[in-house]
């Protein structure tokens, strides 16, 4: 056990000069010890050259410009394929391309869904800087939604593409349940905005909840773990669960969770152009409503808010195929 000395005792043990000498000795000992560790690099002479630590460079600016370019091209192409070309195959090819580029190549980290939080934080905190890519990725799909509906969801979003691809045995969801679940994205959006911008400070009587700012959407992203082929267990488990669910029910994340989808759904209600199932010569057969895995066709009309512009309805339409054939005959007269 160590004994502690008071000042009086210390004076008794080591008075006057001796105390000064003791202090000097202690300083000297400390400096000797310090010098032992604090060594300058030794002189190795010619025989040794200092290795230089490597510094892998970050991606150059052009790849960020390429991302924005790909987004614009993807949105434009999706709008053209859905509204003009009316091609399910085309939309599918585009979404596979988006899954490969934005999902697996760029590892899903440049996403408008997450950008909600950056935008919120930038508006809430004046010291926060935002990158031009995030601004582009947040606003361009919104503009596209006002013009052409949710073309981002159909052709560009890698999360949507993945879920679209695993939809093997589409089942209908009861309309009431579907409607109720469609409120979830707004709850998620509100939570995400609150946590990204301000964190949580609540006081309920003696209970006090405090949580720092965090990016909930990124922490609970279902498929980012798959894109990166690594991630915490809960993330991968949620992703696997949603994929399993998505085999039977079309795009569960997009319809009932995605907060950005919530915003897009609000804006696409007023879109300038949108999916119109049959041009003018309808049959009223209802095959399109049968084919729509998202329950977005009501009274044989595509509901602008919920339509994910996947173009499946065209594919199921006998009239559409007939018209296409006629058009082909007109284009190529034999």
């Amino acid at each position, binding site marked *: 056990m160590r004994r502690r000395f008071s000042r009086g005792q210390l004076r008794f043990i080591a008075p006057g000069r001796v105390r000064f000498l003791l202090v000097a000795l202690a300083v000297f000992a400390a400096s000797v010890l310090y010098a032992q*560790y604090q060594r300058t690099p030794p002189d190795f002479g010619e025989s040794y050259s200092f290795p230089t630590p490597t510094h892998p460079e970050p991606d150059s600016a052009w790849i960020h410009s390429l991302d924005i370019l790909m987004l614009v091209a993807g949105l434009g192409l999706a709008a053209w394929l859905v509204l003009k070309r009316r091609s399910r195959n085309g939309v599918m090819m585009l979404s596979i391309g988006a899954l490969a580029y934005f999902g697996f190549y760029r590892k899903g980290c440049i996403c408008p869904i997450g950008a909600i939080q950056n935008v919120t934080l930038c508006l809430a905190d004046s010291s926060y800087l935002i990158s031009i890519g995030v601004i582009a990725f947040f606003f361009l799909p919104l503009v596209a939604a006002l013009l052409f509906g949710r073309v981002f969801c159909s052709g560009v979003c890698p999360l949507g593409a993945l879920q679209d691809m695993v939809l093997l045995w589409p089942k209908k969801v009861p309309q009431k349940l579907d409607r109720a679940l469609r409120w979830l994205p707004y709850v998620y959006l509100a939570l995400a905005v609150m946590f990204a911008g301000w964190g949580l400070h609540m006081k309920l009587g003696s209970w006090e909840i405090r949580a720092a700012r965090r990016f909930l959407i990124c922490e609970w992203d279902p498929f980012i773990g798959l894109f990166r082929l690594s991630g915490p267990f809960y993330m991968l488990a949620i992703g696997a669960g949603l994929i399993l669910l998505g085999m039977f029910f079309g795009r569960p994340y997009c319809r009932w969770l995605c907060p950005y989808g919530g915003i897009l759904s609000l804006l696409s209600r007023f879109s300038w152009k949108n999916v119109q199932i049959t041009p003018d010569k309808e049959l009223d057969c209802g095959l399109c409503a049968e084919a729509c895995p998202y329950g977005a066709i009501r009274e044989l009309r595509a509901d602008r808010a919920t339509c994910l512009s996947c173009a499946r309805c065209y594919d199921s339409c006998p009239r559409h195929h007939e018209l296409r054939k006629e058009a082909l005959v007109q284009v190529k007269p034999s």
Partner: protein
Amino acid sequence: MSEKSTRRKFIDRSARIAGFVGIGATAGVLARRVSGDHVYQVDPFKCTACDKCRTSCVLSFSAVKAVNDFEKCGYCMLCPAYFDVTSFPDEKGIPSGKVCPQDALKRRVVGKEDPDDPNNNYYEYVIDEERCDGCGKCVKACKPPAGNGSLRLEIRYARCVECNECAIKVACPDQAIIRVKTPGMAPTESPDETKVL
């Protein structure tokens, strides 16, 4: 065209215009605070090697690694970042334990080796990035006065996926994740001169 449909169209158009104006205005506000071509990096002068870099990175194997600045390194035999100096020493006086839990800090003798007295040798310390998980235990141990402060944590861009928002930055208790201009080197001199690494 029926009256209802005209009204619907009017509402649509008004809402659309309002939407465009809203998007434009918000984008305009945000565009004033564009960060440019900056990337995230660890500021070694603020970093306290708290272990958050290991646990908070979105990658399960963090993109933050320890880096040894050889110009500053003392090449010590008894490297406090290599050996756990509190562990029991063997007969030659070399501590039995190591600091790095991943055994990612490797060393090799520089020049001629004196097998009898290890104190006569100089050692080069290199980090094996395949093993390093960025916990920063060695960085902490290398801080002065025990060490020269040659080890520091650095975001390795070969691994970093460059998220919109760095998850480590959100978690960092010391605000040590800063934005630096490309090529993304960590600051080598403290902006605050009273602070010494």
